[in-house]
């Protein structure tokens, strides 16, 4: 089985994001960028399926600027076999991303697409589901367990209240949640080997996809700051304040 994994380059998880003074967006100059954490989990899951013998080849794809190559090299170092960069410096919104991925699926014919449930920049949580609809494939979103069987995959999903398991006919889409696995670190020999793995480049136009944004960002602002309150000295004082001052208990 061939697996396609989509990954995104985002501002590193540990960076405190700051809004630009002109409210046009957030500061990205000289900010550390990394693979979106949910995408790392997607790569790891594909690699584990390959190690178990359930997958034969892992193709990793990213859509973004030239530097997204680094993200793809990371995925190759973690165990993906080859990479595709759909290069653009423009903003690509989830609908356009899913249209590009649909074209990549048409070229590569994978039996499963694994991707993160959301990227930690846009926080949209849309692309996997949109790709599912465009391809008319079933989906297992927010996965915490993935079991491949003959012709199908069972996906256990994190839902509000607990867990739900669905059985999907292959080909299918899986989007990852946090508990699915703990991604490995790339070893130095694997990082060196990754430099020699094939990386193909193309443009959205080569795939015939119009990526013009449909939603305009008018402004980006910092959230309302919450003021720090007071320190209390004892449980007694705390309970008294909650009862008589805040009146919440």
């Amino acid at each position, binding site marked *: 089985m061939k697996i396609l994994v989509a990954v995104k380059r985002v501002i590193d998880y540990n960076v405190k994001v700051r809004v630009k003074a002109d409210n046009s967006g957030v500061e990205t100059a000289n900010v550390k960028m990394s693979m979106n954490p949910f995408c790392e989990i997607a790569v790891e899951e594909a690699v584990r399926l390959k190690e178990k013998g359930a997958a034969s080849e892992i193709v990793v794809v990213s859509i973004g600027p030239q530097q997204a190559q680094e993200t793809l090299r990371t995925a190759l170092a973690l165990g993906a076999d080859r990479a595709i960069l759909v290069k653009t410096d423009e903003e690509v919104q989830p609908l356009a991303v899913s249209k590009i991925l649909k074209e990549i699926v048409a070229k590569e014919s994978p039996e499963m697409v694994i991707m993160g449930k959301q990227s930690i920049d846009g*926080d949209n*949580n849309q692309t996997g589901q949109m790709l*599912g609809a465009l391809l008319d494939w079933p989906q297992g979103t927010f996965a915490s367990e993935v079991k491949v069987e003959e012709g199908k995959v069972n996906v256990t999903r994190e839902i*509000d209240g607990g867990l739900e398991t*669905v059985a999907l006919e292959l080909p299918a889409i899986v989007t990852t949640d946090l508990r699915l696995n703990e991604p490995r670190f790339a070893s130095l020999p694997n990082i060196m080997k990754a430099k020699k793995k094939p990386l193909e480049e193309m443009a959205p136009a080569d795939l015939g996809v119009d990526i013009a944004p449909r939603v305009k960002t008018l402004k980006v602002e910092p959230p309302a700051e919450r003021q720090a309150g007071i320190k209390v000295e004892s449980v007694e004082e*705390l309970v008294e304040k909650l009862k008589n001052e805040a009146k919440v208990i």
Partner: protein
Amino acid sequence: MTTLVIAEHNNSELLASTLSTIAAAKELGNGVHVLVAGKGAGSVAEAAAKVESVEKVLHVEDAALEHLLAETLGNLVAKVAEGYSHILAPATTFGKNFMPRVAAKLDVQMISDIIGVESADTFKRPVFAGNAIATVQSEDSVKLITVRSTAFDAVAAEGGSAETTTIELGDAASTKSSFVGQELTESERPELTAASVIISGGRGMQSGDNFHMLEEIADKLGAAVGASRAAVDAGFVPNDYQVGQTGKIVAPELYIAVGISGAIQHLAGMKDSKVIVAINKDEEAPIFQVADYGLVADLFKVLPELKEAL
């Protein structure tokens, strides 16, 4: 101009997230219709017809809708979408699962997780784990939106008298996905997203067993028990306890954070709570910067005291 709200329910009750979504729909100033799709969901359709501001209920009954799988529900909503200017669903795991499928079918760039309505085409939504709020404008002819329920006060469940129309699922059913099973966390306590008081534990709790100290206090307050991502990652409690950008977004009257340092991703999930209490032995912990009342102390000493004091 009419807005269609997709009801979240469990085939017997309409969930509170639907009432908050209807509140957002009301702010658009259009008429509001509600789609109730399910199996044996007649009581839900009746409840929806009584909700304030609802003009019409579309009721679809089919065995294939029992578990509201995204493939079938996505097909159905895309089929009934014509004529609506806005389609809204709660930004819960229910709404997030199927709405993007509808959007792709209608060739619309959906807008996720709105926290404010500026106008019929302009909305506010958090990005970067709530570290920035974007104001976005949709250029699509129909707006597909998921609504963060904690950002909108629920409309009244009574007071409306909508007409109900029955429609057929027809060829919208998909057989590519099927329901295998469900494990819902059994709890006598309220749901995290519906609770008016929440007590959450972090890595400072040191073990899953120690969460019983929080549970005892929760029972005295009628509270729900939550956790930080660190506590979930450490295996103390299941993921559905998680409060934060990658877990549940909550905004109760009272939020008590115990042994939680206050990572950005946790704050993003609870900082809209009305009153925040932090108990942590590290006085430099960032949680104190958002807490109304901070107690710098060893949680293992003060939790028993708190239990006694309540």
